[in-house]
């Protein structure tokens, strides 16, 4: 009875063990697709980060393109501005030459006017002084005429003896009359000349005044042109400063974008680490398949090749970063020899 009981218990225990083995075997079998799903999830995550990072890089390139476009646009504007400045500069130089010539001509003209005016004024004065001489001549003629009249009377008193003297007196009278007529004629002409010369003097004075006024106006125009050139030069200088400032900002932007592009490389570092985890999952999957297979073997003696520990140790050879090796050693609590990180930039 007791023997039977023990045998019955043993059978139940064996059945239970078989059942548990079957359950464990099934679970181990299910681990493989489990790891496969996780592996694919990791690959999907890597692809998503890759897509995202590439979109960011595209955006960075677009920002750089826009920035370069603005700088090019400004450079073109500056080029046009320089052309305009050259034209204005050349025009300014031509204006200076023309103004110098006009100044010279106006000064020469003003000097001539002044000389002519002085000459006219002197001449007018001289002409007016002639009037006194003419008056003297007229007086002399009048007195001569009177003298000739007296001489004719005296010649008449002398009779035949005074006949010759009477002829002379008559000639003298004739001369005095002609002298008086000439003096009168000269006086009329001097008077007319004097009036014309007075008019010329007034005209010359007005011309001199007009020249002075023109000079003032010309100086104003020259000053306006100079002010215009000065304002344009100031504006051009400011524009050049703005363009240089934009250029500097663009260079800073390129530096910042280049920095960002460098930092984006983290994705490749992370990708390699995640891929290593993915390989580990595949390795685990392989290991569970191996155990499942062994469990179904009647003659399996419990040995595994490789063991899980050996598989874990093999991962060290697949690491590329010291940080991976350090984590591995840290978790296992062992001292895995890993060389110190060399310089990040090492030129041989």
């Amino acid at each position, binding site marked *: 009875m007791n023997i039977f009981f023990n045998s019955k218990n043993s059978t139940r225990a064996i059945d239970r063990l078989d059942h548990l083995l079957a359950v464990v075997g099934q679970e181990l079998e299910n681990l493989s697709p489990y790891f496969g799903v996780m592996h694919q999830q990791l690959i999907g995550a890597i692809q998503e980060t890759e897509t995202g990072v590439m979109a960011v890089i595209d955006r960075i390139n677009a920002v750089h393109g826009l920035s370069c476009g603005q700088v090019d646009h400004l450079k073109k504007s500056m080029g046009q501005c320089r052309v305009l400045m050259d034209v204005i500069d050349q025009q300014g130089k031509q204006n200076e030459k023309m103004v110098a010539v006009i100044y010279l001509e106006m000064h020469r003209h003003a000097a001539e006017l002044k000389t002519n005016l002085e000459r006219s004024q002197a001449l007018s004065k001289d002409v007016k002084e002639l009037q006194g001489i003419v008056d003297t001549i007229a007086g002399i003629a009048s007195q001569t005429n009177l003298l000739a009249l007296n001489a004719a009377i005296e010649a008449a008193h002398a009779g035949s003896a005074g006949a010759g003297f009477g002829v002379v007196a008559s000639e003298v009278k004739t001369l005095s009359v002609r002298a008086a007529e000439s003096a009168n004629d000269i006086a009329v002409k001097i008077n007319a000349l004097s009036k014309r010369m007075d008019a010329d003097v007034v005209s010359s004075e007005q011309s001199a005044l007009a020249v002075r006024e023109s000079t003032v106006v010309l100086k104003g125009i020259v000053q306006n042109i100079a002010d215009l050139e000065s304002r344009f030069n100031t504006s051009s200088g400011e524009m050049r400063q703005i363009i240089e400032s934009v250029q500097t900002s663009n260079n800073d932007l390129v530096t910042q*974008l280049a920095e960002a592009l460098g930092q*984006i490389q983290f994705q490749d570092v992370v990708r390699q680490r995640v891929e290593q985890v993915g390989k580990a999952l595949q390795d685990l999957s392989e290991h569970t398949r191996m155990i499942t297979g062994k469990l179904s073997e009647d003659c399996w003696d419990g040995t595994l090749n490789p063991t899980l520990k050996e598989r874990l140790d093999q991962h060290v050879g697949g690491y590329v970063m010291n940080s991976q090796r350090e984590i591995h050693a840290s978790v296992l609590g062992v001292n895995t020899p890993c*060389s110190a990180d060399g310089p990040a930039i090492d030129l041989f």
Partner: protein
Amino acid sequence: MAKTILIVDDSATMVLSVKSTLEMNGFNVVTASDGVQALAKLKGGIKPDLIITDVNMPNMDGLELIRNVKTLPGFRFTPILTLTTESQSAKRDQAKQLGATGWLVKPVSGPDLIKVIKQVVPGA
């Protein structure tokens, strides 16, 4: 005249980020996704002033690429920089022995990369 640089990396993000950095700084860029493709481009007539290569790549890794490039006619003196996450000093030493010009560890900032390129490429 702008210098030409060949970038060799199996990571599309690495290729794009380095390519963008270099183009922003006025370089011409040619790319390849592994050593085999890079060698094919060199044999096909591309004559870069510098090669920047990853180390761990499928088909042909960076060290093998360096070895092959150094035996190619006309490329013996072409400077080669490695740009990698690899930190094993043995591989770094191997690259040096094979004739690499320098070893850069990812991630490397854009300005630092440009600085190094100006050091190793005459007239860059």
